[in-house]
């Protein structure tokens, strides 16, 4: 019979079982969800898209490892969150960005935004977006030079295509010159991603495919992406610029720029979005409003990055005012209201 006296028992608090999902598996799912867009970028922009993403991810992991080693903190690179940040950072930069620039961006993302505030879950701004914003402020030239696949010279491998400055679909939307835009890119081109733009943002189709994976794996819920994209869609449908066709303007607005990437991958970042479903809807709508405002009235052509960062700052406030209704108080509240 068993020798019960010599069992090595641990007596920890309940619950004694845990679901299989963990931080690492969630981050792995996000990485998997980014692969279609990465594959498309590699096909369209050449191998540089792949190597730039790899360098960015490696740089993020390196900075996190270095910071935590120097400060003698428990190592955290195993949770793969730095890889996600690195991939997202590369996704919001042009494919022509030099490697050394993205390594600097990774430093901003990981050290400045994430680690200095306490590491995973503690950052109040989206690391990848701050990384991009810092690079945009520091290296405007590199950050606004786009490869133009419509020039027909974008090869599958190697970088010999013409580059263009400024003239992305978003600049046409800014002026409302839809006729010129339609001549260059059809709505289908926009949806599939045959346009100029940041590395990972161009193909709405591939990003939506990734979003479906995240929804299926329950990594994200529909609330933020739906509220965000829905808000942009409704506003651009109602108020097309320059007398353009409502539906056409809406489709270009939704598939253009970084909206899909932002709504599916950036705004849904756990650390910088509200925790309740109600809060997530408000946050998504806020992101949508700011995006449309910047696109319509701002000096930038694209507003996704800054809208999400602004809404990140509202998260504590949204959390404060969207607490769940306390269990057992719903009925009495109604009764009191009726009594009045």
């Amino acid at each position: 019979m068993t020798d019960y006296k010599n069992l090595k028992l641990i007596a920890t608090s309940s619950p004694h079982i845990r679901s299989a999902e963990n931080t690492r598996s969630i981050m792995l799912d996000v990485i998997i969800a980014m692969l279609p867009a990465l594959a498309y970028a590699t096909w369209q922009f050449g191998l540089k898209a792949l190597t730039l993403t790899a360098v960015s991810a490696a740089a993020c992991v390196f900075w996190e490892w270095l910071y935590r080693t120097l400060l003698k903190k428990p190592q955290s690179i195993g949770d793969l969150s730095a890889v996600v940040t690195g991939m997202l950072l590369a996704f919001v930069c042009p494919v022509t960005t030099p490697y050394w620039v993205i390594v600097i961006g990774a430093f901003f993302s990981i050290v400045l935004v994430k680690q200095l505030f306490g590491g995973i879950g503690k950052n109040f701004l989206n690391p990848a977006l701050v990384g991009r914003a810092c690079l945009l402020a520091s290296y405007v030239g590199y950050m606004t030079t786009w490869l133009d696949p419509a020039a027909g010279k974008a090869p599958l491998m190697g970088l010999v295509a013409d580059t263009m400055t400024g003239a992305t679909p978003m600049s046409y939307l800014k002026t409302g010159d839809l006729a010129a835009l339609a001549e260059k890119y059809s709505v289908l081109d926009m949806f599939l991603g045959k346009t100029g733009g940041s590395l990972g943002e161009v193909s709405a189709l591939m990003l939506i495919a990734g979003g479906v994976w995240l929804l299926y794996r329950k990594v994200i819920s529909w609330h933020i992406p739906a509220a965000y994209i829905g808000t942009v869609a409704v506003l651009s449908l109602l108020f097309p610029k320059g007398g353009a066709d409502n539906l056409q303007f809406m489709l270009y607005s939704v598939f253009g720029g970084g909206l899909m990437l932002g709504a599916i991958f950036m705004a849904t970042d756990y650390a910088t979005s509200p925790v309740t479903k109600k809060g997530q809807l408000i946050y998504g709508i806020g992101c949508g409003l700011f995006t449309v405002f910047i696109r319509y009235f701002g000096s930038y052509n694209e507003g996704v990055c800054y809208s999400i960062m602004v809404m990140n700052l509202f998260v504590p406030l949204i959390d404060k005012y969207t607490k769940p209704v306390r269990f057992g108080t719903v009925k009495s509240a109604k009764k009191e209201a009726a009594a009045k």
Partner: protein
Amino acid sequence: MAQAFFGGVHPNDMKAATNEKAIEQLAPPAKVVIPMSMHFGAPCTPLVKVGDYVKVGQKIGEFHGLGAPIHASVSGKVIAVEPRPYNMGGNMMAVVIENDGKDELSEEVKAPENPDSLTVDEMVEAVKNAGIVGMGGATFPTHVKISGGIGKVDTVIINGAECEPYITGDHRTMLERPEEIIGGATYLAKMFGVDKVIIGVEDNKQNGIDVMNKVIAEKHAPVVVEPLHCRYPQGGEKQLCQAITGKQVPPGGLPSNIGCAVFNINTTCAIFRAITQGMPVVRKIVTVSGSGVIEPKNLECPIGTPVSNLFDACGGLKEGTYKLIMGGPMMGMAQYTTDVPVGKGTGAMLAFCEKEEQTVENPQCIRCGKCVEACPMHLEPLFMYQYASKGMVDELNEAHIMDCMECGACAYICPARMHLTHMFKTGKQLVKNKAAADKAAAEAKKAAQEKKEA
């Protein structure tokens, strides 16, 4: 199908190991250790001393205030009355009886001549004398729940949810002793003066539902079975009330506040035996399961049986067993010794030897919000964790930490594997300590004031 409750999680139910296994009688243990605290309330005082001969059903512990009496579960000689390890951790005064194996029934156990003619007061008295407590694990004295609820309660619910993984004792009881359940439910209907009693059962026990429905039809009993969708913590009292009536128990309140009273399946059987046979609670059905148990079983054993006897009856434990849990895996207590005895609220004894325990070093909250979604009490565990870890008592109160019932749904779902439930137990204690300190300070101030005035 009944309405839902908030939140909840879907752990793998692990019930297949024992749900086909009939309840077996455990071979009589050589001795039983009966702790004087097996109920919610102050411990009982032992009524016997070393050397006394006791018989099955003889009262050996008397309660004071809130509580229930305790009875001998075997016949034999009392060999010790001393503190022994018990399931809540630490030691508790216990009566140790050497089993003579005769199972002689005490003269105190008397079946009424005609159970069906008993008045409500007589029935409540029978429940009280039988020492019945909530056998689902909460161990609240049943006679208090009944007498306190009469007149206020219009919905009597029998809790057959059995939502904790692994446990199948209630399921087996439904299949093997449906008459006792329906009979007990009928007496409850009589006591509360209601015309029907609702049995809430999760739909993973369809055969149990069918068997009970058959008995209800045969006896024309005032009972209905309500199937419920499987979700943990369906069997939480407040959640079951919400699922069946749609009403929410107010904060700090009891089900009786919304006209409900909830009784466990085995409590209902005990009520039936108390009223028809005058039999007190002396035996308990325990599911012995988990990866560390060689042959999982449902065992019925005398109260006070050391859990080592249960494991022996199941072929012993596997090499590398690292955790013993009394109760279910979501809310049960980890035990540090197999000397602890089976109590009135013990529904399961689990042993783990695989990778059930998935803790990580240095867990970090990633703010995913899954705990908020899972909380059946509409709390925000991630914020409560921050406040509790920093000792912020006022913030804990504002976050309604005292509403937390420690069901473990948040900690179960947490991908960062934060020790949420553990931290809330600590946090609740902080709140209680602060309240006690505030009260003492207020009293001291008042005393000083009076002194000054005098």
